[in-house]
Each structure stands twice: as structure tokens, then as C-alpha cells.
């Protein structure tokens, strides 16, 4: 078993999360945005696993499972939306879809 300090695990999760966040902020393609969201969710799951591993308890893994289900649902709906939007706007540019501006 890898006996790494918990800080390192958490820092890894943080780095991955922030990379995902940068992606969300920078990319204009909706598919990329969805991919970056996956990265962020995954990073959150990683943090749970690290913490669960620190205490040797199953709860971290349970949480990861929940995140997994949410991710699955999110991706299915998100991708369906991508298809729908692509039909509608003929582009995947997120900036073009600003119909809800105030």
C-alpha cells in the first residue's frame, strides 16, 4: 500500500480540479466544457477516496459511487443537450448560446 501523506493526495485532487476549472473557463466548445466538468467531478471523487483511505473506512468510496452516478446522469443529459443544441444553433460555441442574458 502506498503510504503517502494525505496532503499530497489532496493536492493532486486540487490540481486536477483547478485544471478542470481552467478548462471550463477557457474552452468555448460545449463538448470540451463537459469533458472539463468530468475532470472536476473526478477530482472531487479523488479527494473523497484519499480521505477515506486515510481512515481506512468505506465511506469515501461510497461517496465516490454517488458521484459516479451523478456524473453518469449528468453526462447523459448533458450530451443529449449538446445534440439538441447542435441541431438548434448549428454550432457548439457556448458563447453563442446566451439567450438567457438579463
Amino acid at each position, binding site marked *: 500500500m502506498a503510504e*503517502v501523506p494525505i496532503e499530497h493526495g489532496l493536492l493532486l485532487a486540487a490540481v486536477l480540479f483547478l485544471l478542470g476549472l481552467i478548462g471550463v473557463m477557457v474552452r468555448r466548445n460545449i463538448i470540451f466544457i463537459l469533458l472539463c466538468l468530468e*475532470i472536476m467531478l473526478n477530482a472531487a471523487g479523488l479527494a473523497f477516496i484519499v480521505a477515506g483511505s486515510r481512515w481506512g473506512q468505506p465511506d469515501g468510496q461510497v461517496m465516490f459511487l454517488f458521484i459516479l452516478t451523478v456524473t453518469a446522469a449528468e453526462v447523459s443529459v448533458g450530451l443529449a443537450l449538446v445534440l439538441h443544441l447542435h441541431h438548434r444553433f448549428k454550432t457548439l460555441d457556448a458563447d453563442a448560446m446566451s439567450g438567457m442574458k438579463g
Partner: protein
Amino acid sequence: MTIVFYLSAAVAVIATVLVITRLNAVHALLHLIVSLLAIAVIFFTLGAPFVAALEVIIYAGAIMVLFVFVIMMLNLGPHAAEAERRWLDPAIWVGPGILALILAGEVGYLILRGAAGTTGAAIVGPQTVGVSLFTTYMLGVELASLVLLAGLVGAYHLGRRRGAGEDGEGERTNG
């Protein structure tokens, strides 16, 4: 095993950086799969073999395949990569980068200040997880199933074709 952790971590970070910088969606997807596999290895080293397996099967397998399907359905051609190049002006990275750095600093400060201890004390196998899942978190499981059902229904509703004319038109434009 510790070295495996750090190696996998390096792979995961590099792969992720590549994900967010690629112009071609399929390339990015492949890098993401690499990243997810690296994280699966990390899970394994942290004594969580069950979720490591799930990570490979569901994340890298099922979900990413879904992405592949969609990208294929959208039939993105070379002009998509061209558009990506146009969109990804180098200047656009500056702001989010600074923001992320500040956040990283704050998060890092908090992590390094508080926590203590090491990981990987023991292997927590599928059995333990399953028992916990179906006793303590029973309600959560039920809710998760509902979420999945809702996702199913929602995806079906959104993805339903509304007549061939509209659809054909869309394909012509993309092709």
C-alpha cells in the same frame, strides 16, 4: 508502491493538461481516458480496488464511449479544429490561469495547514463498501437510482428526434 502513486499522479496531471489544451475533441477524449486510468491506478494504490475497477469500467469505459458516440454523431470535421484554434487565443488563458493560481494557493495553504497522517493504512474491499452502501447509505442509493432514472428520462426526451426534415437539415450543414 509510493513511487507508483507519484508516477500515476504525474501522468494524470500531464494528461489532464493535454485534455484541456487539445483542439481535436477525439484527441482530448483519449487523453482524458489516460488521465482516468492513471487515477484508477492511484485508487488502487490507496487501497480502494473496487472503485479503481469502477473507474476503469464506468468512467473510462461507459461514459467516455458515450462521448465518442456523440462526437461521431456530430461529425465534426477539420473546420471544427480550425474554429478551436481561433477560439483558443493565448491571451484567453491569462485570466483563468491567474484565478486558478490564486485558488491553488488558497487551497494548498488550507490543505498544508490542517491535515495530517498518511493514506493507505488498509485495503477496503468491495465487501466492506457493499455492506456500507446497503446499510448506512441505503437512502442515498435509492436517491441515486432516482437520479439515474431522471437522467435516463431526460436524455431520452432531449435526444428524441423531432421529424426528419429538421434533422436532415442539420446534417447537411455539418457535412
